[in-house]
């Protein structure tokens, strides 16, 4: 059973978002997603300073098995990207919710968060996908 932390919000396309104490949002892909993808070999991330919109493509994750688009769960300005993934893309597999994060966004519209899935709804979405 994959790890689905209760404090995060999710997209059914397997991205997670964590709202930090300073109001910024950190985005990555879930444990379930990394397990489906297998070994991650490259991650293409947005540029710092770029404006991204909720639900739009913000990058690509390539594993030995497949290439998958990464969608941003929220709108805002990209404040930082995880440069460690350039050297160690396997962090996405080993620590999807910690050192394997993708990018950080300064939220422009907090109401984006309201439309996201909570852990329970995301778990149900994964179950539905598996069956």
């Amino acid at each position, binding site marked *: 059973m994959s790890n689905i932390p209760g404090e995060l919000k999710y997209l059914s396309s397997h991205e997670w978002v964590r709202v930090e104490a300073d109001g910024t949002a950190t985005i990555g892909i879930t444990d379930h997603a990394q397990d489906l993808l*297998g*070994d991650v*070999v*490259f991650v293409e991330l947005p540029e710092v300073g770029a404006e991204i919109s909720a639900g739009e493509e913000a990058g690509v994750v*390539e594993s*030995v*098995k497949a*290439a998958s688009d990464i969608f941003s769960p929220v709108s805002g300005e990209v404040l930082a990207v995880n440069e460690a993934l350039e050297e160690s893309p*396997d962090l996405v*597999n080993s620590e999807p919710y910690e050192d394997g994060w993708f990018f950080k966004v300064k939220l422009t519209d907090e109401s984006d968060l309201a439309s996201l899935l909570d852990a329970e709804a995301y778990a149900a979405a994964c179950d539905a996908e598996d069956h």
Partner: protein
Amino acid sequence: MGNKTALYETHVACGGKIVDFGGWDMPIHYGSQLEEHHVVRKASGMFDVSHMTIVDLAGDDAKRYLRYLLANDVDKLKEVGKALYSAMLNEQGGVIDDLIVYNMPEGYRLVVNCGTREKDLAWMQKQADGFDVLLTERPELSMVAVQGPEAIEKAKQVLGGDKAEVISSLKVFQGLESDGWMLCRTGYTGEDGLEIIVPESEVVSFWQNLQSAGVKPCGLGARDTLRLEAGMNLYGSDMDETVSPLQANMAWTIAWQPDDRNFIGRAALETEKAEGVKSKLVGLVLEERGVLRSHQKVVVEGIGEGEITSGTFSPTLGYSIAMARVPADTSDQCAVEMRKKLQTVKVVSPPFVRNGARVYK
């Protein structure tokens, strides 16, 4: 629910992630495909390949039959146990399957792919008409590939006795029997190693003993990245019934001599050769980020288009490699359409990796 090999429960117990593979429930990896790939390049790994089809051939006409059935010539097999890689063609020169045939004391043994089992057996039976041959499938035999620079030593250590002696005596591409087992110095990884045919009642303990000796279980995911690095074709991806061996980098497997050996597909191949072969299978290398994948379009400027037949990330090299069918006039560069953009790639001759190191130029 697919077919299961005698090792299925063992794979599950080892943490194997099971997927459908040509109708068989097989482990794709046991945690990390990359780790399994590297262990075969650096130490030793083992694969369950019991899903492959083993067919024994007996009868007075066995040799005459195979000289008709196969594009390569079993007359080359002078020693007992010597093996030959060959295509089995249809009348149009398309590849029905690729296989290994062993010269056995009492006849021949063929090892063919799993996904093509039914059509292969039907074709072989059909062509047997008029020959005194008996085809016997051997589903009760399992097969384990032990591959890597340490593979042969580990297998000898685990088996000991007569079998270890037989292994020591093996030449490359030879397989010899010992006590109901068959020990073959063959493989699909570009490393030294063995493919061992084992009675299924003994395969679980053999696997467990290899594991105790430090041989790592590896899934079919790593088998695919290893074989692609080694420049070996995969049936159904790099060639099939619509492709001739001349277009699949397999010209070396066609025995044109002697002139009077009529094998199935020969006439079609001769015509194709006379008219000029229109496409070829080449290696592609993308030294930048991104992964080449099968079915991506290849554009050769001023010449035409082609298609990637197998593509992957090469764990040994750290970037992506592929095999592609391209127009015959393609030289050293082309472009691949990746995510709607054209990306320039280098055209090379496979293999990409041998014995753990880069070999293409």
